């Protein structure tokens, strides 16, 4: 059995937890996130003939009240970097987060997910930024926890990157 620890990173309220909820059936309540700062879920993903068990560490996004606990990243094989398309600040935050991850655990595979694609008309994101990221070699996906768009794909892509 192959297991991989992956983390959900991103600013506060970008929709990390909603994405996870869309992806798995949780056993833990969301309360853990505000208390311990992390909530853990699991999802088995099939990649070809190989099955991977993804253990998702949904890490509480940094806000004014709580700092992100970087220790939770330790041992992660990859992460989903989540931003909110309707808030430009979250995209900028994503850059700093990616940088910080590289400092803390090194360059590990990640997939950049811009969430809330159902509200695409309200997006503050211009395509220039997206292309800038693409140039850097980032995998970018648009997702919507509301419609389910891009959710499975994001996790699968991350799994592929980790195993590849």
């Amino acid at each position, binding site marked *: *059995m*192959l*297991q*991989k*620890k992956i983390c959900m990173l991103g600013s506060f309220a970008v929709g990390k937890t909603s994405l996870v909820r869309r992806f798995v059936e949780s*056993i*833990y309540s969301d309360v*853990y996130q505000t208390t*311990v*700062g*992390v909530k*853990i*879920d*699991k999802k088995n993903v099939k990649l070809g003939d190989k099955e*991977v*068990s993804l*253990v998702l*560490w949904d890490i509480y996004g940094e806000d004014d009240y709580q700092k992100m*606990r970087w*220790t*939770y990243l*330790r*041992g*992660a*094989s990859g992460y989903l970097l989540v931003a909110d398309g309707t808030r430009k600040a979250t995209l900028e935050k994503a850059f700093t987060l990616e940088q910080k991850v590289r400092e803390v655990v090194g360059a590990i595979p990640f997939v950049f997910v811009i969430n809330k694609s159902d509200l695409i008309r309200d997006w503050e994101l211009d395509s220039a930024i997206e292309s800038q990221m693409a140039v850097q070699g980032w995998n970018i996906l648009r997702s919507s926890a509301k419609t389910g768009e891009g959710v499975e794909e994001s996790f699968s892509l991350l799994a592929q990157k980790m195993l590849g």
Partner: protein
Amino acid sequence: MGSAPRHSRDPLEFRPKMAETPPTRPAPEPDDQPCEPEAQAYLELRQLILAPEQEALERLHQRVDDPASRTEDVGSVVAEAIQLRRSQGGDEALSVALAPTIETALRESVRKDPGTLADALFPVMGPAIRRSILETLRSFLESFNQVLDQSLSVKGLKWRLEALRTGRSFTEVALLHSLVFRVEQVFLIHKKTGLPIGHAVASAVAMQDPSLVSGMLSAIQDFVRDSFHTSQGQGINRMNVGDLDVWVEEGPYAILACVIRGIAPRDLRDRMAEVLENVHREYSAQLDLFDGETAPFVKVGGELSRCLELRFKEDAKKKSFGFVYATAALLFLLVAVWVGWRAVQYARWDRLVNNLREQPGFVITSFGRDRGHFVVRGMRDPLAADPAQFIKASDVNPADGEFHWGGYYALDDGIVEQRAKSTLSPPPTVTLAVKSGLLFVSGAASANWVKDIQSRAWQVPGIRAVELSPELNPGRLAFNQAKTEIESAVVKFPVASAALSPGEALALRNLAATIQSLLQAADTLRQSANVEVLGHTDSTGAEAVNLGLSQRRADRVASELGQAGVPERILRARGVGTTNPLRAEDNEENRQFNRSVTFRISALAP
């Protein structure tokens, strides 16, 4: 080409001489002598060309051959050499090579002076020992607290009973029960990723997904470590929720967590440490390279199961039976105590009742217990002793019982005697005694009283006969009374006369009747009696005359008595003259008394 070996061999050829001679210019060689000028030239040439090299060679030889300088050379580079060796990765071989030497050195050091090594180790040993002591104390306190917690509860009471039943000490029993536990799940968690490497679960335990539990456990560890800034290896080693305990043991690569229901002993911690060590030893490489693939650890479950094995056995069935036995024993004990107490109580009352039964004037008709209350029914003579004094003297509690007395006349001698005394009120000279309903009367009493008592004694309940002592015999009393009466009689005569006055004659007839009754009484006593009739005179006149006169007076009275019916055979008349005067003749009245006749009775046995 040909000169090269020559050159290289040269120093070797010179070597023995170098060692024997000072490092100055060597003396001409013996083997150089035959070819003189040529050889000399060659030698000089060689010296000219090779002198500096030869000197350098000589110095080298000296350094190599001299142990002192060789040591100096090696000494200056030994540390760098070891460093170099280590950096080249020859670590293990070096350790292997050095280990025996170091071991011997350590042994030698300890043998020479243990103090040196002890001093060196002191800073390390102190904390290690302290930590060990702390751990020991902590585990002791843990179990001690548990025992204390339980000692006052219902469970504690049960344990006390069990201790009583089995004869073990309470502490032992309490500890044994305190240590009832079950390891439900064992997690082996990769420390860095928080992913489960292995998982073992006891039968019939509802389990969560090991991945999630492992992740959350390590997240909590991280959280605590992060929040309180403790160093690595100092995370939570125990979590407790109700009777569920999570014990965590941390190793370099992996964490072992046991989910325990109940209270586990310290031994489990040791077992966990042992298992974790074994895992680290067997899988050190795999643990180091762990990338989420659990395949290399398939067999780790067996090792983890060792944590599930440890369990203080408690047979629930046996225990419940034990409790039943204990309860039964307690009930039996209580009943026994109750019965025993009742028996003791009963015995006390029984003793009291028997004591009363033996007392005169008491009749116990029934004795029993009515709803725990003793009831004594009986009869009591009014003259019997007060029962209260017997109750007081006994060991019964008067409040535990009651007495119902009816009145009656007791026939006990003592009581009858008392009753006779109070009813008959005898004079102080009389003694009354009762034996088997027979009233014995003794002492001195009048004939009348004796007669009276003989009729009245029957009125006293319990007296069926009266027995008078001999002196109270009616015949005797009558005899004595008549005798006294007769002997006190005085028949007076005129001066120098033996004639009876009419009054005296009458008195004599009365006296005759008394003598008759005396004779009758003597008859009842089966005795005979004589009456001596004594004639007296006063002291005037001649004695011879007086004697005759006194004889005549006696005879006169005797004949008068004979005439009155007194048998003459019992009468003895005798004149005693003045020899036996009644009174001193100091006046006429007294003199008159001496002119008289008196009587004396003598009783004769048949």
